[in-house]
């Protein structure tokens, strides 16, 4: 190494101006990181309140309205303000241009705009929702949301609508960047899987979000102007809303999990020092999931009174969409074979992801099976299933990715011991919280209940205790990450001996990512 010190992207100054008007994707990543972390802990507090209420069978800690507003807040914040933007807007923003070998995203100013839309929309919603309360759940089912609820539905819907634009802009930016900004030699089959995953996610964002937008717009119009669209008394179809909502919201699940799969592919290859097993298969699986994900939405409606034929068709596709996910799990596991495995914190997150995602995926099969879904629909089994995918899967991978790329983003190392403790606490706390909910679900406990028959108390108490461990697991990284910013040891360009263009530049990277644009001569994960 020469002694020459590059000016990196953080050395451009700390003035407010240099952050709030930046168009550097790496700085925008930090803006997102701050907003998203705020929303995550807000949603987390709501979750703890929910678990606290459910310690005892009667509704004694929160009123019925209070409970309903709390779980709605939890759902709305976590789905739209945390999970959907989480990995793409932070890690994706930081890494997409670096991984394809570009100086920035194709539209840097659009990128900044999308952060503003996201954050202002989010703050607006939070203020309105906490001030006025919304009790519809994150699903906004009509006619409850349009005609019966007396809470601040319009504000919530408007907020989600606004944030939708931010998703769309990010999606456009990633798609165009992947298509037009790749470095010389970086052809499609040399892209890291993280790029592929974010690309597929962007396709979903772009194709699905507008349908949600127009649907939410109509709920607002129905409440504000009395223009009935979903109103059964005008001959409106109560299932129409569900169709349009799930046309977005089912693919939205893949918006959350695909980037997570991308992250895990990077983690597992790096810490087993091995090529990914079946790269082409992985790419194919990513694209298959994102496209097939669009034709399974009706599996949220098996009990709703939709046509039985449609139910059968949707069930069939739901079984099909599970196959590529299973193949991916096989490939990750096979990547360990004959590798050199180190159990660093990011790797522990990666392996936790494998286990938790497998449980979440397999219970998804239970729910694709029509008759079984009828019994399990709207019970705690569902709650447990999607938390295994979204928290056990997406959030675990998000944290794993943060731990992996933290040295690159900051140039600092964090405490190894504490990071491993946090990763283990999360794994244990998560299972303690959500495994009992599978049992609750099969025994019949419906979701969104603020009081319940006494027989279910034991399992609820276990779940609530687990949530405390989980909360500690989430707070720890906040502490040692902050500590590392000031006291952490310098990381060097490549602390993990990882492959990938982002590791070939300094940590933190210079303003335009590379001193000179790299020329790519081989595929990703050249570990052997």
């Amino acid at each position, binding site marked *: 190494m020469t002694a020459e010190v590059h000016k990196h992207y953080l050395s451009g100054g700390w003035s407010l101006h240099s952050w709030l008007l930046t168009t550097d994707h790496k700085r925008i990543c930090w803006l997102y990181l701050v907003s998203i972390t705020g929303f995550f802990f807000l949603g987390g507090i709501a979750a703890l309140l929910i678990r606290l209420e459910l310690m005892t069978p009667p509704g004694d800690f929160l009123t019925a309205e209070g409970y309903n507003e709390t779980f709605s807040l939890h759902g709305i914040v976590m789905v739209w303000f945390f999970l959907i933007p989480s990995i793409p807007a932070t890690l994706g923003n930081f890494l997409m241009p670096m991984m394809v070998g570009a*100086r920035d995203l194709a539209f840097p100013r659009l990128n900044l705009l999308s952060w503003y839309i996201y954050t202002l929309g989010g703050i607006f919603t939070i203020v309105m929702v906490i001030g006025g309360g919304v009790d519809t759940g994150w699903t906004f089912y009509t006619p409850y949301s349009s005609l019966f609820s007396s809470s601040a539905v319009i504000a919530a819907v408007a907020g989600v609508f606004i944030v939708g634009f931010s998703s769309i802009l990010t999606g*456009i930016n990633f798609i*165009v960047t992947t298509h*037009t900004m790749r470095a010389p030699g970086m052809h499609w089959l040399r892209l890291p899987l993280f790029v592929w995953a974010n690309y597929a996610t962007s396709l979903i964002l*772009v194709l699905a979000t507008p349908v949600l937008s*127009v649907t939410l717009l*109509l709920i607002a119009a129905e409440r504000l102007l009395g223009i009935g*669209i979903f109103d059964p008394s005008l*001959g409106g*179809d109560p299932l129409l809303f569900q169709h349009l909502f799930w046309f977005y919201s089912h693919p939205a699940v893949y918006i959350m999990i695909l980037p997570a799969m991308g992250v895990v592919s990077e983690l597992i290859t790096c810490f087993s020092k091995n090529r990914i097993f079946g790269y082409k298969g992985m790419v194919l699986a990513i694209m298959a999931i994102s496209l097939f994900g669009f034709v399974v939405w009706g599996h949220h409606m098996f009990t709703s009174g939709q046509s039985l034929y449609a139910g059968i068709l949707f069930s069939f596709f739901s079984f099909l969409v599970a196959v590529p996910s299973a193949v991916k799990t096989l490939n990750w596991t096979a990547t360990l074979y004959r590798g050199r495995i180190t159990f660093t914190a990011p790797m522990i997150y990666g392996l936790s992801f494998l286990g938790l995602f497998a449980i979440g995926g397999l219970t998804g099969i239970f729910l694709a099976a029509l008759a079984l879904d009828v019994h399990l629909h709207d019970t705690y089994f569902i709650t447990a299933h999607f938390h295994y995918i979204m928290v056990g899967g997406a959030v675990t991978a998000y944290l794993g990715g943060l731990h992996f790329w933290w040295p690159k983003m900051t140039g600092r190392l964090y405490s190894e011991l504490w990071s491993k403790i946090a990763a283990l606490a999360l794994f244990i706390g998560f299972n303690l919280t959500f495994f009992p909910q599978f049992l609750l679900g099969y025994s019949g406990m419906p979701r969104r209940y603020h009081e319940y028959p006494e027989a279910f108390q034991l399992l609820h108490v276990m779940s609530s205790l687990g949530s405390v461990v989980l909360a500690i697991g989430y707070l720890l990284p906040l502490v040692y990450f902050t500590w590392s910013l000031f006291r952490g040891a310098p990381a060097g360009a490549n602390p993990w001996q990882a492959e990938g263009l982002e590791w070939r530049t300094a940590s933190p990277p210079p303003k335009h990512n590379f001193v000179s644009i790299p020329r790519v001569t081989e595929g990703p994960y050249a570990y052997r």
Partner: protein
Amino acid sequence: MPIVKPAPAEQFDDMGQQRRAVLMGMWVFLVTELLLFGGGFAMFAMYRVQHPQVFAEAAGHLSLPLATANTVLLLTSGLTMALAEQAVEAGSRRLTLVFYLATMALGLGFLGVKGYEWYQEWQAQLMPLPGLVFAWPGNESQQAELFFNLYFILTGLHALHMVIGLGLLGVMVVLVQRWRDPHRLTRQTQVSGLYWAFVDVIWLFLFTTLYLLGP
């Protein structure tokens, strides 16, 4: 006029790359717009098959002549916009301005006719807003109301896009007036042209769906 040597924005390698990126970005954006309207079309389709008679009857209460005139206006504005694109490429500032202004005039004409149509429907008491009387002359007033709700939402959403388009053209007129960087203007004109033509395309399907599926 001074010849400006074109330079790409700092994240791009060359002009070709920038042009490709900008056009692709616009097209992807238009796809999202398509799906925004698409949700509305899906709703309409669902209700059209559930209440076929009333919906056909209600379509008969809309003014086909006015809508046809509007379609002519919009198609013509598509022509002038395409000509504006050619004019800017040919480097003629005056012609570009003329075509831009013609496009805007035609667009304003469209909105005027649309407004008159809404006014007529308001007079005929077919506007289902709170505070207004909805007087449907036939049977099944509720389902007719559903039709008119969808009609006003879809045409309103389209009119909103027209207004945004007009705003965009207004900005472009100012930029053409200044004529700073012709390469950039060409790119911007192409993007505005794409948006304007897209609003045309949506209108063609709205016209077909709302006006032509009468009894």
